[in-house]
């Protein structure tokens, strides 16, 4: 069986050998896999959840599920990808479990978030588009916005729009057909865009009424 050498030039067993040994009852072998992929799984959970506790729970759940389903792992396939699928599905299950969908309303935004939004939307679109710096208010606003989406919409928006995965890649991770991914993507975009339009309209009418209230001053400025 193929073995690699680590940085200290020691022979390290490859994933397949460790899986075989785990299946034969070697508890230590699976622990090696946990240490090998723990960081990657923790960061997959980070794509969907910010809280460290949540990410730890997902990591734990992923390895537990992998251990229980180890006999279904096909030799020759990438163990890492197999594990990733379990992790993303564990995230999806967690999103579904914590689903408390609320209508997104601008009225629910904190004052700081509202201010951030107004300032952001006051910029020209190009500038906003190319803005690199992040703000805690944007994070909070984004979390509220995403919480109003269904778990499916949220998942595909993050994986496709934010992380740049292809529909084929998402299909493989989730066990969905390409057409199912495309339909979900279409719905997710529509749902998110609807909320974003509402934000833009709300911001526009807010700035219009503000402008009206400040009319004498704004005239002076011009």
């Amino acid at each position: 069986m193929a073995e690699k050498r680590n940085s200290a030039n020691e022979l390290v067993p490859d994933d397949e050998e460790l899986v075989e040994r785990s299946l034969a009852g070697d508890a230590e072998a699976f622990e090696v896999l946990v240490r090998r992929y723990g960081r990657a799984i923790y960061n997959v959970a980070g794509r969907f959840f910010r809280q460290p506790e949540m990410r730890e729970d997902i990591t734990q759940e992923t390895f537990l599920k992998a251990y229980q389903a180890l006999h279904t792992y096909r030799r020759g396939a990438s163990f890492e990808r197999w594990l990733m699928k379990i992790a993303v599905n564990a995230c999806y299950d967690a999103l579904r479990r914590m689903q408390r969908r609320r209508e997104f309303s601008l009225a629910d935004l904190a004052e700081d978030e509202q201010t951030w939004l107004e300032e952001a939307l006051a910029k020209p679109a190009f500038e906003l588009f190319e803005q690199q710096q992040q703000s805690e208010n944007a994070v909070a606003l984004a979390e509220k916005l995403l919480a109003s989406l269904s778990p499916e919409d949220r998942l595909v928006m993050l994986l496709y729009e934010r992380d740049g995965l292809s529909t084929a890649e998402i299909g493989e991770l989730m066990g969905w057909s390409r057409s199912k991914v495309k339909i979900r993507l279409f719905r997710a975009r529509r749902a998110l865009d609807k909320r974003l339009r509402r934000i833009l309209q709300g911001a526009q009418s807010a700035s219009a009424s503000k402008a009206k209230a400040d009319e004498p001053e704004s005239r002076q400025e011009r």
Partner: protein
Amino acid sequence: MTCRDIRKRMAMWARAASPGEIAGAEREALAAHLSACPACAEELRLLALKRILLRATRVPEVDPAPSLYARVSARLRQERARSLFSFWEAARTFAASVAVVAMLLLMLLAGVNIYIHQQIPVERRDFISALMERNFSEAERLVFAGEELSQEGVLSALAAEPRESR
């Protein structure tokens, strides 16, 4: 470029994993289009907002707390113990159900036996046990005392008995 082309390009820029800079000539073409087309300008604002909000949810890759590995190990140990326990548990459940079925079967057989016995009239039962005990004089007495037994039947049965056993 038509609005359709522009929007396609904008959606691509918004999605690109690289920083969303729109370069040189494309930028100029886009700016020219946007200044004449408020609908596309509004679309870019929407994409820009979407992009910035989605990007805000990104977290940098980090190492998990070292205690996580200990937690996972503990959970796996628990799982191994549980699956071993559940094997014995299943074996015990199986054995217990086999015992219950056997007991029910025994009770059923005993019940059937009692029922059959109760269906036989007392005198016939006594006759049968007298025959089984080879107490033929008693059997004979019962035959002639009883009304339900036919004399011929019993006598022929007695005649079929080997002589030496009388």
